[in-house]
């Protein structure tokens, strides 16, 4: 059911973990399935220098976290905000229809982390 890319990212997820001194942290629970993803970002000069994630979720959620963090790393905040769950799914070679919502987890957690970063900047 999963693409090879999904399986590959699931087996060797990139950027797993926490950033203790993160500039922004976002956590989101999935409305559909109750799963959770948490994203930590480290920002320098408006660029995401480091990003890590943790997931309590299905295979698609883990692969999405891995893929999204790879995609976001090195991007500016504005560029990172352009990443949608659709992009993540596409980069993973597609997700089964009933698993599309899983890619939301990662993207939404990233938005939240950026929001958190911005609010800390503003604060």
């Amino acid at each position, binding site marked *: 059911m999963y693409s090879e890319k999904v399986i590959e990212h699931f087996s060797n997820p990139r950027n797993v973990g926490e950033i203790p001194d993160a500039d922004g942290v976002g956590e989101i629970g999935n409305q559909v399935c*109750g799963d959770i993803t948490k994203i930590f970002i480290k920002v320098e000069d408006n660029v995401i220098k480091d990003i890590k994630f*943790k997931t*309590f979720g299905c295979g698609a959620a883990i692969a999405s976290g891995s893929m999204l963090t790879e995609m976001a790393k090195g991007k500016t905040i504005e560029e990172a905000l352009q990443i949608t769950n659709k992009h993540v799914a596409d980069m993973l070679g597609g997700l089964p229809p009933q698993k599309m919502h899983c890619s939301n987890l990662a993207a939404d957690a990233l938005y939240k982390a950026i929001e958190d970063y911005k609010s800390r900047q503003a604060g």
Partner: protein
Amino acid sequence: MRRVYFDHGVTTPLDPAVLEEMLPFLKEQFGNPSSFHWFGRPVRKAVEEAREKVAAAIGADPKEIVFTSGGTESVNIAIAGAVTANRNKGNHIITCTVEHHCSLNTCKGLARQGYEVTFVPVDSCGMVNVEQIASAITDRTILINIMHANNEVGTIQPVAEIGRLARERGIIFHTDACASFGKIPVNVEEMGADLLSVSAHKVYGPKGCGALYIRKGTRWSPVFHGGAQERLRRSGTENVPGIVGFGKAAEMAAAGLEEESARLKVLRDRVIRGVLGRFEHVQLTGHPEKRLPNHASFCFKFIEGESMLLSLDMQGVAASSGSACTAGSMEPSHVLTSMGISPVDAYGSLMVTLGKGNSEEEVDYFLETLEPIVKKLREMSPLCAF
């Protein structure tokens, strides 16, 4: 890659001896058992012999056995047929919260149609309380529907007591024995069952065949309309190879029951001890003793079941996380939440169901495989504090 099948509760391979019995009916013996001529006659005979074997395996009379397309159909028509035939006597059904979806959803459907349905709760081991059932009975109760053993957590219900109770109060008792048949003794007399459902593919028989036991004298109406097959109780051209295979599978299941159960129990306990000994934050789900001899089920905290299954799968181990027919579902198991397990813990469920051909060595391979998987997934989990 090594392949270990630990998912016998979901479905089993067809026993080669069963296939052997089926083959003639997939080849030259293709007649319709209702046909009168030489193509039909031997086929009719084979169907009746299969009926005798299934009947013998559950202590019934062959006339009391109706062949169906599987466990789901048996359960559906058992319940629907019983309440339709007894509508004039009442409209109240008693069932429990941990039934298989085919039973639970049929009862919910009847509730929407205006039947009154009491869903009796279970304790933390997944067990119903007979007194609660007794006190739920009213003058309008026409059916008690409690499964024999639970497919997700392996808990064996006190069906004999429920059967006695039902008998005393003149209420029809249906029990879904799809999960228990072939693993523990299933005897319609001892259980006091009026209706009982079994499925072939859970006992090394073919998919697409099941049976419904209907005790002589039970008021029950057929659900399918059509030809006069199965003595008017189930219309449709018979799935002859399926029926013949089920007959053989039932015979074999009954014959090998004691020995195989004892063997599987040892393996099961090795799984349970291995898991509980090796991991923290894991609980055995279901009853610690009154459980199916081949059934071990757990909740792993901080882990989502699918990623555990997928990781096991990548190492060749097939297991499941709750009932197969809801594998695509995003909801936590109704069985586990009924037992008081929180949804987030319920997501971490793992079910191992052993069967013919499984070995100690496979259990050890499974345990060794599982260890780094759990470690890795927990490290990845935002819920895990250690």
